[in-house]
């Protein structure tokens, strides 16, 4: 895991001092609301329904145990004993006091964390594959490039006042777990015909109000040109992106309105003038890769016999292993998910006690590292198979072992109307209701791989348009209604969900979901996943049943 140098630490400390001065100026009335708003947003501070919201960066989702303990400390001392993990692998606090936020940021800086550029019209936290470095289908570990990009994007003097926010994701595996086709820039590490590894560059994807699948602008970019190419794209976007209408200001609209060919020509012309003076040196890449070198794995891990035996003896354990762990590239190891989707707690939330306990588990079993996933769970990535049983027992005690990863109750959910000032409708309540209706784990496992994403408004923080089932809260004359979509996907087979029909009333959402799942159970082919079936039969059979009952 990357460790801060003196430069990194100085930069973060100076940022805290800067924001402290700005906040003091604002509180004294020396800085206008409008100006302070732009500055606080660039430090992750929103003003929400009840209180300010502080969003902290989880760089490409990677955290260590010390940092997680610090989050627990902040939850206890500055908030209401919990925090929330977001779809950008970030961490949010819902109840901090504005005047204390500089103190919180100073606490974070002491463990090499910050909230820089986690909101505002600037380059945001770079996200990545939650199984980076451990998965079996990896071309190359994306994290060193994520860190190079993190540094380049942080306090970039030219690109901090963009037309709109700008998100970059990097994937190094064959299976895209980072939704690279739905980012302003998606980077995919690929091998060319000569066997060299470089980047496939995808541009102009995005979710939100106008979901668009990104297009390949550069099939193969040599690694040394990574930053010059990003600079070229950002400069063209900064100069030509629309600023007249915030709903048309994302790069996806620029690419769409000008056509990929024209946009690409502008970028290419810009890049050709930059590329030779801005090369990423091989030394820098090697040094950065060294920061992410493999931990000291036990060569004898696979010799353990207990793992197989305990699965035979204990059905609950074997169910958890099946659903909540993933294959690891090292024999005798697995990656274990920490499910933040227990039936009775809001998706993605964690208490201070759970945070502390997971930090201890990471120290005991997973080299002290914890990762956040973009589906709002955590992963302990390097668990020896012999340790999975005690880990499972402890996670069960903590209510963090619900065996539902990748299933119907592993919903992505935004904070919704309960917390967010933008929301039109509640989402946490609906998630709870669906959870209560789907209380039979065998039924959930029978349904299998299913991604339900639910957002409380058009901004689509919970990526409803790429959910296999998407639920979007809308406001109809002061009441909450929900628009359903089917067939979305953020993975390799990227697709935007199709609208099922008219929005349904709040008290009908759970019923509609159950109806959809029943149609699937009755009409699926053997081994056919929900998404495959939707792709085969379309939405009609679902639509007929959902609206027949209304």
């Amino acid at each position: 895991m990357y460790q801060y140098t003196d430069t990194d630490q100085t930069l973060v400390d100076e940022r805290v001092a800067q924001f402290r001065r700005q906040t003091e100026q604002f509180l004294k009335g020396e800085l206008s609301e409008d100006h302070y708003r732009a500055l606080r947003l660039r430090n992750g501070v929103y003003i929400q329904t009840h209180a300010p919201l502080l969003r902290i960066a989880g760089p490409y989702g990677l955290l260590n145990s010390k940092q997680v303990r610090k989050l627990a400390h902040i939850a206890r001392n500055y908030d209401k004993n919990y925090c929330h993990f977001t779809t950008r692998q970030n961490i949010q606090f819902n109840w901090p006091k504005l005047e204390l936020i500089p103190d919180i940021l100073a606490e974070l800086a002491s463990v090499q964390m910050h909230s820089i550029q986690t909101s505002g019209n600037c380059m945001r936290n770079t996200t990545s594959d939650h199984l980076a470095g451990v998965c079996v289908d990896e071309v190359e570990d994306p994290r060193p490039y994520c860190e190079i990009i993190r540094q380049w994007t942080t306090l970039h003097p030219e690109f901090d006042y963009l037309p709109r926010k700008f998100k970059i994701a990097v994937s190094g595996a064959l299976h895209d777990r980072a939704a690279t086709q739905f980012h302003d820039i998606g980077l995919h590490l690929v091998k060319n015909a000569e066997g060299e590894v470089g980047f496939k560059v995808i541009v102009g994807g995005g979710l939100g109000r106008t979901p668009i699948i990104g297009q390949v602008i550069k099939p193969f970019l040599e690694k040394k040109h990574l930053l010059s190419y990003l600079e070229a794209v950002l400069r063209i976007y900064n100069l030509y992106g629309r600023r007249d209408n915030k709903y048309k200001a994302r790069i996806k609209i620029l690419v769409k309105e000008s056509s990929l060919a024209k946009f690409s020509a502008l970028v290419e012309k810009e890049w050709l003038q930059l590329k030779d003076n801005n090369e990423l040196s091989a030394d820098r890449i090697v040094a950065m890769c060294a920061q992410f070198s493999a931990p000291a794995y036990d060569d004898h891990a696979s010799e353990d016999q207990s793992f197989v035996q305990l699965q035979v003896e204990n059905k609950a354990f074997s169910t958890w292993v099946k659903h909540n762990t993933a294959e690891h590239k090292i024999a005798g190891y697995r990656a274990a998910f920490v499910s933040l989707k227990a039936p009775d707690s809001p998706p993605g939330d964690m208490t201070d006690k759970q945070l502390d306990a997971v930090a201890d588990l990471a120290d005991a079993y997973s080299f002290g590292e914890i990762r956040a996933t973009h589906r709002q769970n955590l992963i302990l990535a390097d668990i020896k198979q012999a340790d999975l049983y005690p880990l499972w027992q402890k996670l069960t005690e903590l209510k963090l072992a619900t065996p539902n990863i990748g299933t119907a109750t592993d919903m992505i959910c935004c904070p919704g109307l309960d917390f967010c000032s933008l929301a039109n409708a509640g989402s946490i309540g609906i998630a709870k209701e669906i959870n209560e209706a789907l209380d039979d784990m065998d039924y959930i496992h029978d349904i299998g791989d299913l991604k339900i994403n639910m957002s409380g408004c058009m901004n689509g923080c919970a990526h409803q348009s790429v959910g296999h089932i998407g639920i979007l809260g809308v406001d109809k004359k002061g009441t909450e209604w929900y628009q359903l979509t089917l067939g979305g996907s953020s993975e390799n087979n990227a697709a935007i969900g199709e609208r099922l029909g008219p929005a349904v009333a709040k008290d009908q959402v759970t019923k509609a979901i159950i109806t959809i799942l029943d149609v699937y159970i009755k009409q699926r082919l053997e081994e056919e996943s929900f998404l495959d079936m939707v792709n085969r039969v379309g939405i009609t059979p679902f639509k007929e049943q959902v609206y027949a009952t209304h």
Partner: protein
Amino acid sequence: MQLIKDQQIIDNTWQYIADNEQPKTGDISVSFARWQRDKQELLAHDGRLGVRISSLDNVDELADDLDKLQLIELDFPDFADGRSFSQAWLLRGRYHYQGEIRAIGHYIPDQVFYLARVGVNAFSPKTSRELSSIINKLQDFTVNYQSSIN
């Protein structure tokens, strides 16, 4: 009115001439449209020349004239309009402009550190009270991650 140039507070010697005004003796700046229209007449006037560009102007079109200009004013219509940052970078980084680049209009003092990094070396404050604030904020950071102009 005083302003900041190269980290010092100095007196402003420049005057902006509106598009319907006659050029005056001394240091004057004009709009980009005026410059394109009356280039020869302006070059004949007694004094130094500057051009005021808006965030909509394309600085590439100014590239061939840069050796005739001692001042380029970047006029911020709104502090959130970040095009001026790229304009400054292009003037310095691509066209190697050596004269003064001055931020004017609706930028905010909290942006001057970034503006200085992309090559802006002079700042016209909205009020004289902003002078010390701008000087201080030019020192917000002692480190950075990217190469830029400064």
